[in-house]
């Protein structure tokens, strides 16, 4: 594919529990399992952000680590950052991927993927941001690439399946 070279060059990695905002390049979360990759995009200003969300709710767990690992805080902070560099909240739309259940016997974390997805959806709704596409759930991992120039999100799986939306 012609984009492959460009992707390699401009790939900006988002580590677990982090987010980044950009006006060019490709943001990526590699190997999402129960985590949820949340992409926000203002198509007018072409400003986008991608968050690698680990946990649903910052109010449920206290005093542990960065706020950006939680759905509520990560979305809030990423949105604020996007607006501070020129995005308009009214134009921002969302695409999400991830939230799988990798091991069904992992008792305490069994539904963490699903809870993450629900928390992200709720937070987006609360902020009045339209969720326009998602690929969530299931029992497989995902690597996502978010192209800031087009706003397209590419989801890849370990067995070579690929989708773009």
């Amino acid at each position, binding site marked *: 594919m012609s984009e492959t070279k460009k992707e390699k060059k401009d790939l900006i990695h988002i580590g677990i529990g982090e987010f980044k905002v950009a006006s060019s390049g490709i943001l990526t979360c590699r190997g999402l*399992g129960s985590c949820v990759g949340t992409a926000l995009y203002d198509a007018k200003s072409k400003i986008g952000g991608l968050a690698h969300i680990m946990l649903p709710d910052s109010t449920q767990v206290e*005093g542990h680590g960065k706020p950006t690992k939680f759905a509520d805080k990560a979305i809030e902070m990423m949105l604020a950052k996007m607006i501070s560099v020129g995005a308009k909240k009214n134009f921002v739309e969302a695409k999400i991927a991830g939230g799988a259940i990798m091991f069904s016997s992992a*008792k305490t974390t069994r539904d*963490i993927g699903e809870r993450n997805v629900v928390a992200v959806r709720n937070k987006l709704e609360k902020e009045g941001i339209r969720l326009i596409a998602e690929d969530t759930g299931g029992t497989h991992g995902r*690597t996502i690439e978010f192209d800031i120039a087009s706003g397209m999100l590419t989801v890849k799986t370990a067995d070579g399946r690929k989708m773009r939306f």
Partner: protein
Amino acid sequence: MEEAIKLTDAQMDALREVGSIGAGNAATALSQMVGKKINMTVPEIHIVPLKKVPEMLGGADNLVAGIYTRVLDDAVGGILLVFPRDSALSLADMLVGREVGSTKALSEMDRSSLIELGNILSASFLNAMAKLLSVTLIPSVPDVAFDMAGSVVDFMLIQLSNVGKQAIVLDVEFIEAAAKVRGHFFLLPDPKSLEVILESLGVHGGR
């Protein structure tokens, strides 16, 4: 606040002891299962920052086999064994009795044998740990996932991130004749039990 896990020499020794007793027992059980001599060692124990775990496994989208065993008694949350793809293939070769290195893709049979391996390993290590801690630890039937490293370990990182910033990892090595295969053995304590375990290791490990 989160604190770095600091293991005393005595605790490290105790973990090593758990590791080598567990490995010894597992090797015996494995050798019986496959009908030939398989040795197992724990060459290294690492304390790894959670962020570095995917890197340690060759990168977040590197393919791995993950075998997760939950502990039914809640003193320890669970055990996650992770093998890079090539190691998982070699291990399957070892277990099924093919020449190591001959398999390129895992069959259903290979998967079952890896689950069985997870069973044996978890049980052996839990037994060794249970003895040391004087508690009963009963493993569940393991679950296997073959997928990207990041996706296989992220539920564990989520769980561990509620405890601290690091993971305790025992490297395990399987040796059959000239072939060596290395995997990683992660302990997933429930938030409260980590302290209990480390404390117990401190108390009992100083012998």
